[in-house]
């Protein structure tokens, strides 16, 4: 099976790439059928990705019967470049700082693809949602002058994103991290003649640069520290193993990972990168503006897939983070803070897409909060939420797009209402998506959010959980082997002795305490209530009450075509059922546990039996119910009364309306000073540098005029010049031989 997987995984990125190339080459000729190459490429990739997932699942299940044994398949396509003897050496000891790599290891960049449970899961999500969005776009983008360009970009994005999650090398991850950023930039600015769109694209790009800077520095540090950038173990020509950063050798080595200041720096820089790409505070400001792009692009890139790249990066690098509890806790703090801040802002937005954008930021915050627990439950819960979120948020965005399509481009919720009469399918699917987002039993979001809350709760109250699970263990007796040792529900680094090569703890590690996570738990629970509120506020404002249609809609005001409603229905089914199925069977959790990155002993030790936490579920459901109830009181069947809302919010109102003054702060503190600097630089450039360069630039031209004069075209002069030149050389050389 693994042989075929190693071949198939190459096809997953390759097919959309071919689709993109074909669209570029044939797009103009195909006209209204320009979607065909991209659709075929993404569709075939989705089918292949499904096969890869099935094959990996068989690998995880079959053969060894140990659920926690990691599974990975590496396909090295070619070696892009090799620099011999580039190994960094610690000048004192002569060996690389933390690793076992030899000091003269070559710096090589193999183009390697990997398949493991994490990659396989994400590939299916990327290509699957990509396919649905592409189908939807046939209807949505119909008649747009940039029709072929859109599909080429979407296919290009699917290629880049699949490469990002399939790459087995930090440098390749960086390359495709940039590639998805470029696709995102191009799609946000898709209608580039609109000034807001061009501005939003620029903003997204620039804010992301901050994060990319973090990833670049993190990559440098990784190379300096570990002497390789590969995830997997590689073998040199003479048969010795070069342990990859996330390879089996290092994972099973207790001293494999560097902690302390260097490790924490790497982790925090990666977190910075993740904050940029996944729109976490304080780099979240680009995502709401990114809604200027076409709605299907928002659904695919800015909701379901690209923005989860940060979650993927942290999950993939889990063993690095485990060695740095301080950095890990910062991940949780950033996540929970983002979740709360974004949810608060979302409650006062009137633009339907912006509500969803802030909700995306908020839900991504949940994922980070779960990741920061550093437990097996936390990591799997984050990916579980990533999967369900991909379904229901894509559904909500596509639903919003359907509304926007029907309303003639108007997306301000105050200007329409009662649309369920006009667009029954959109309304029904949107409500399902909203219920999933709000965490209503038994829709998908309920289960994944419950797991995240459980992960936070287990860190906040380690003792309670330990006893809880101990009972379960006695009763059920079906524990994974890895957890069979002395049971620890959650481990705190500040309690335990430093592990392995971690060395000295950094001050940040003091954050890793139950009290921190108690705060984070309650923040997240409150956010859950807010989520339910703003989601259903949007539902009530859009779909209930008397029918209202803005005049821009014209004759468009009807249900969207089948290409658009079809994907909505598919996603609605997934949003409704996926959570329940995946939670009850725990298929995803057990599957993901076989990911090499999650098989580090420190993570495996935190694995707990799969359980339903009734107390947490009740708390979560209660929060959702309160949120929905408040939304119903305020908005069911009625227009929102802004005066009432303002009175109700009090001083919080202007803060929320101005999105916590993030943009204003950045404008004053960063943009304005930089603009002033840019102005000075421009003036210096024009009047000092350019003038000098122009002067220098005229020199070769002058010489050229002289040389041209010598180029007389007369044969005898040419021959004379040549012979004289040779004689001059001979004489000059002979001069050196003088005694």
């Amino acid at each position, binding site marked *: 099976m693994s042989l075929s997987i190693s071949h198939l995984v190459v096809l997953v990125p390759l097919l959309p790439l071919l689709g993109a190339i074909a669209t570029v080459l044939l797009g103009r000729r195909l006209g209204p059928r320009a979607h065909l190459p991209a659709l075929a490429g993404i569709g075939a990739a989705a089918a292949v990705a499904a096969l890869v997932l099935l094959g990996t699942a068989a690998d995880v299940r079959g053969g060894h019967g140990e659920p926690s044994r990691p599974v990975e398949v590496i396909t090295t396509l070619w070696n892009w470049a090799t620099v*011999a*003897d580039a190994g960094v050496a610690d000048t004192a000891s002569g060996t690389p700082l933390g690793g076992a790599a030899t000091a003269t290891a070559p710096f090589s960049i193999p183009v390697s693809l990997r398949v493991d449970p994490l990659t396989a899961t994400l590939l299916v999500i990327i290509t699957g949602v990509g396919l649905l969005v592409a189908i939807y776009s046939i209807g949505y983008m119909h008649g747009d002058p940039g029709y072929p360009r859109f599909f080429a970009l979407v296919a290009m994005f699917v290629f880049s994103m699949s490469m990002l999650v399939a790459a087995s090398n930090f440098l390749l991850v960086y390359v495709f991290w940039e590639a998805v950023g470029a696709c995102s930039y191009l799609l946000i600015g898709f209608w580039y003649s609109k000034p807001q769109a061009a501005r939003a694209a620029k903003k997204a790009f620039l804010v992301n640069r901050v994060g990319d800077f973090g990833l670049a520095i993190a990559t440098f540090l990784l190379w300096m520290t570990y002497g390789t950038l590969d995830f997997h173990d590689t073998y040199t020509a003479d048969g010795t193993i070069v342990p990859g950063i996330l390879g089996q050798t290092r994972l099973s080595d207790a001293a494999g990972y560097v902690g302390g200041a260097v490790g924490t720096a790497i982790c925090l820089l990666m977190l910075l990168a993740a904050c940029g790409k996944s729109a976490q505070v304080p780099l979240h400001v680009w995502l709401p503006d990114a809604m200027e792009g076409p709605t299907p692009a928002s659904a695919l890139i800015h909701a379901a897939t690209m923005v989860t790249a940060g979650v993927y990066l942290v999950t993939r690098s889990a063993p690095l983070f485990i060695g740095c509890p301080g950095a890990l806790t910062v991940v949780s703090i950033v996540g929970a803070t983002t979740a709360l801040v974004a949810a608060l802002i979302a409650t006062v937005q009137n633009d339907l897409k912006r509500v969803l954008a802030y909700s995306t930021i908020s839900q991504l915050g949940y994922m980070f909060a779960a990741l920061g627990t550093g437990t097996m439950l936390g990591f799997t819960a984050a990916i579980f939420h990533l999967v369900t979120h991909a379904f229901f948020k894509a559904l909500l965005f596509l639903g919003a797009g359907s509304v926007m399509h029907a309303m003639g481009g108007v997306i301000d919720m105050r200007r329409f209402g009662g649309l369920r009469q006009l667009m029954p399918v959109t309304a029904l699917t949107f409500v399902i998506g909203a219920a999933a987002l709000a965490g209503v039993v038994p829709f998908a979001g309920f289960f994944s959010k419950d797991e995240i809350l459980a992960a936070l709760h287990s860190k906040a109250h380690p003792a309670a959980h330990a006893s809880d699970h101990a009972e379960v263990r006695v009763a059920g007796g079906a524990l994974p082997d890895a957890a069979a040792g002395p049971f620890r529900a959650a481990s705190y680094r500040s309690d335990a002795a430093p592990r392995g090569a971690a060395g000295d703890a950094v001050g940040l590690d003091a954050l890793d305490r139950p009290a921190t996570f108690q705060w984070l738990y309650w923040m997240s629970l409150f956010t859950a209530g807010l989520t339910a509120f703003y989601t259903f506020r949007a539902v009530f404002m859009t779909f209930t009450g008397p029918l209202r249609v803005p005049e821009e809609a014209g004759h468009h005001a009807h249900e969207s075509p089948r290409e658009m409603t079809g994907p909505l229905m598919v996603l609605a089914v997934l949003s409704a059922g996926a959570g329940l199925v995946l939670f009850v069977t725990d298929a995803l959790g057990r599957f993901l546990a076989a990911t090499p990155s999650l098989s580090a002993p420190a993570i495996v030790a935190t694995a707990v039996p799969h359980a339903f936490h009734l107390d947490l579920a009740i708390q979560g459901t209660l929060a959702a119910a309160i949120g929905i109830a408040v939304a119903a009181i305020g908005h069911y069947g009625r227009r929102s009364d802004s005066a009432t809302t303002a009175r109700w919010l009090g001083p919080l109102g202007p803060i929320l309306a101005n999105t916590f003054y993030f943009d204003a702060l950045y404008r004053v503190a960063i943009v304005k000073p930089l603009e002033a600097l840019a102005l000075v630089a421009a003036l210096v450039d024009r009047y000092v540098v350019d003038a000098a360069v122009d002067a220098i630039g005229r020199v*070769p031209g002058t010489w*050229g005029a002289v040389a041209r004069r010598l180029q007389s075209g007369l044969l005898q002069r040419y021959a004379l010049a*040549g012979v004289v*030149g040779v004689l001059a050389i001979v004489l000059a*050389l002979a001069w050196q031989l003088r005694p």
Partner: protein
Amino acid sequence: MTPTSLSTFLLAGPELTLVAAALVAYLGGAFFGLRQGWVVALAGIVAAALWPEMGPGSGAVATSGPLAIDDFSLFVRSLVLWAGAGLALVQSGDQLRAAITPRPGPRPTGTCEEAGTFLLLLAGLSLVASAGDLVLLFAGLELVSIPTYVLLALKRTDARGQEASLKYFFLSLVASALFLYGLAALYGIGGSTSLEAIGARLRSGEGRVAGTAEILLPVAFGMLLGGVAFRLAAVPMHFYAPDVYEGTGPANAALLSTLPKVAGIVVLLRLLALGTGGTTGLIALGQGAVGPAAAAWLTFAWQVAALLAAVTMTVGNVMALVQTNLRRLLACSSIAHAGYLLVGVAAAAAADATVGGRPFAGPDTAWTGALGGASATLFYLATYTAATVGVFGGLAYLGHRWPEWTSGSAPRPPREEVSTVDDLDGLSGTNPVVAFSLSVFLLSLAGIPPLPGFWGKLSLAMSALEVDWTARAVPGSRRIVFIALAVVLVLNAAIAAAYYLRLVAAMYFRSAKRGVQADGGIAAGLAMLLALVAVGSMTFRPKPLFAAASRAGAAVAAPHERGPITADAPPQPGTAPRVPLAP
């Protein structure tokens, strides 16, 4: 020299195959036309390429008769065959298409002999790299020159074409005469026509070569360099290039800017090997000291090469800046590229030169995986050849348009060519594939990463910087000279970018004044695409070429033992003595 025998002919199999194909083309001229001639030419090249490897194996040299075949010869041979295939396609122009799908209209002028002449040129060039003897070396060089005159004269019958071919002919004669003088002086030094024997004599540690013949060293080197400089189009023998390129067609310009340059570099590196003991060296390992004559020889070599490199690239580039005619511009740029190539030659000579009789401590090679001077030159030569064949292939493909010719009944107006920079305006709109390919080639020539031209320039600059790597850079030292040379190279690359980007900008950012019909023949377009594939593969997988150039450069620049093939036993692949490179 080992006696000539059957093994000599087997070793020269590919060259003989080319000659045989040439004979077929000549004889066939009585029976069929030019189009079929080019089919024969391509078949001959393919057959030569398929000839089984008779080489000595890695790091060794096989000598038989006047031949001395090592990794360097094999590298040049395959470069010649690849370039030959591309050039044959460009040369054949629309004739090849006509051979497949006959079309009405006047038969193209030209005869089948053209193709045969081209094949002889290739054979001569390949022989230059395989020559272990002055006579064969000169014969090979003339076998490059004489077919070139013929092709120049055959292709263009208008006044400018005739002027160009006549200019080339006379200046080439001057260069050949200089080269022959140089060879005579070299014979005077070495007392033999065998490169091996001359090299041994040079390095033999005797203070005075052949009694009082020391003065022959600068004479020999200067004259030989004059002959080589003409082929390279390097200062001071560069004047002909713009006139000749402009006067002849793109196919011949492609030929002139690649094959003679290969010949020049090959000869130059072989001459360096006389001092270093490269392939034909007899220095026992561990006995590194070489005689003062060889030291002087190498010192001359790096001094002259460094000076000419700096002057040549600067002259070429500043002249190119002011050109408006496309082929004149490319001629100037080819002069500049000769200068770049000489940087590597200078570095190769300096890296192996001995100073004051002391063995020179080589550069700290552990520093990077960079190539040495000779290898960098060969690598650059390959990238340059691929891009140049591509550019001229594209121009040939674009050529021959009939602006006013619309229907089949009207008399066909004379063909026109893309000749000025303005003709390229808006090409991206009318011929996107050609515009893209040309841009790739031009950017590679300009040295924009990650295209192979960048890796080539980087290797050249690195090889210059590695000279005396461990020494301190004090004024007047060799290290400072080579640092300056690397700086000049980089500055020149910046100047060159100006005119290359001007062409790219014309194609992409200006609107078309006149549509270009691209009727220059599908074969030229095919050559362009072939070059695009070559440039692309060098971009994405530069490693094989790096490795091959590195081996070839080591063969010509580093001393090692030779593994002769005994005269009477025909060499068999695998049975040839294989002597590994010294560690």
